[in-house]
């Protein structure tokens, strides 16, 4: 009994700042403004702007997860062909560690300074006759946001996927070659199947990473709330229409549900990977 006293501070803290907020979101989703049970908040999710925000968020996250996964995996493989413990590997992985954290306001500013109305790439392209400044493409979810999000997805992919690629043993390739297999055979029958679970798992992680992101879009987009985190942010900062006080909580619950499904798949895949690569 005395031993339990030692963990009380931890449980009390996580109760107040983690469990209670989670409960507030879950319970609040089913309460109306005056505290009576209702399903109104969930049906309110069917409003066109919320539905389209959910769709935008999902498509944006899926597309950047695939782009990030493909380019990140290419980079990881390219780096892994370098010398073991060599400079390139060390530099690329520490740079990616930083770039994956590099999000939010700074990233938004970096893109505005580069391909915004006055950005140097925009000005340079104007000189050769391509006009980027004529539209608001940088602030649209399917154009600018995809480009910006890919910027932090690729480094995250490298960090997550590099250990898997490094787990490929040269002996496997030699074995395939000694049996007369070509490079294509090696990738199709040996390396591909071994890497597939980690690749898909990493892609799921990238999906949740983009799906949860708020700061980058908030700093970049000043008008409208095309993605779901911005919609939720809007319910917190502006006056809310009467009777819709808890719609933000219902949206938050929807986000958690999607993230939870994806993370469950990720954990299941991760277990498989561990079995295969013996990590």
């Amino acid at each position: 009994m005395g031993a339990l006293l030692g963990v009380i501070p931890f449980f009390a803290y996580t109760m107040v700042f983690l469990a209670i907020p989670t409960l507030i979101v879950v319970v609040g989703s089913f309460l109306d403004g005056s505290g009576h049970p209702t399903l109104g908040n969930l049906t309110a999710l069917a409003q066109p702007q919320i539905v389209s925000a959910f769709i935008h968020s999902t498509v944006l996250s899926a597309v950047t997860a695939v782009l990030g996964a493909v380019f990140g995996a290419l980079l990881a493989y390219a780096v892994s062909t370098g010398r073991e413990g060599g400079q390139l590997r060390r530099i690329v992985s520490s740079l990616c560690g930083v770039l994956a954290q590099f999000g939010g306001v700074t990233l938004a500013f970096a893109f505005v300074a580069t391909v915004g109305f006055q950005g140097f790439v925009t000005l340079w392209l104007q000189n050769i006759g391509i006009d980027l400044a004529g539209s608001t493409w940088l602030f649209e979810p399917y154009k600018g946001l995809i480009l910006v999000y890919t910027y932090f997805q690729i480094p995250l992919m490298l960090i997550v996927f590099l250990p898997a690629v490094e787990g490929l043993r040269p002996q496997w390739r030699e074995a395939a070659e000694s049996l007369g297999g070509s490079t294509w055979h090696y990738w199709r029958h040996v390396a591909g199947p071994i890497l597939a679970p980690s690749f898909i798992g990493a892609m799921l992680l990238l999906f949740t990473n983009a799906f949860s992101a708020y700061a980058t879009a908030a700093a970049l987009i000043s008008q409208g709330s095309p993605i779901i985190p911005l919609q939720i942010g809007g319910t917190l900062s502006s006056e809310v229409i009467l009777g819709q006080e808890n719609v933000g909580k219902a949206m938050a619950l929807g986000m958690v549900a999607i993230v939870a499904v994806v993370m469950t798949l990720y954990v299941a895949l991760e277990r498989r990977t561990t079995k295969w690569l013996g990590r």
Partner: protein
Amino acid sequence: MKLRATRRRKQTIFRRVVVGMIGLFFALPLLGMVEFTTRAPGGGRTLDTWATLFDFNVIDADYPELKTGVLASAGLVLLTVAIMLIMLVPTMTWVRLRLPGLRRTVEFICLLPLTIPAIVLVVGLAPVYAWVSYFLGESSLWLAFAYVVLVLPYAYRALDAGLSAIDVKTLAEAARSLGAGWPTVMWRIILPNVRTAVLSASFLSVALVLGEFTIASLFSRDNLQVAINQLGKRDASLAIAAAFAFMVIAFLVLFAMSFVGNGRRSSRPEEN
């Protein structure tokens, strides 16, 4: 043998092309920031913006929001790291020693924030922070309570790796049998043995707190990122210079981390 040599050559070309192309994609926005902050009004280059950024008198007088933000973030870094360490290190040690049955539960709780996006946490924290403001006042410093939750998964993983590498039980029993009390065991036995893990947990927390925007901005508190964002509406050039400067600082912090111990890295960043 010949086959392998050909492959090696092909791989080298492939490596250079891929690293070069992706490297260019990463370099362009960074270059864009440097280019933008060194533009002179009539064309040409100037370092005026950077001179302003490092002139503390001018910052103090003309850009008070930046100073407030920097100070708030500095306080938040210290408070977050302090709460995180004071809470996690003893709890995790204690659970290993006396309550091994609770280890899974503690791990589950610590990793839980990975599945809760910061924006969702903000929604749930709003009523909690109404109470925090009621008892402790409106200071930005109290954001640290929420930040501790954000850093929990990363700190837990780093500390768990450190504690797994030493024999906590034997060390503690040896100290106890020599008459040490629990505080002595914690402070003089466990802590020195996991200092690498403590350092990497702290570095990760510093990087995360310096980059945090979501919670601070939605609760209308001050921190570095909120200040830079506000500044962006007034003086784009200076804001971009400040963002770049603090990114370099975060880079140095994380780079230093890769030299501490084996530099274990977390697999998932927050705050994008």
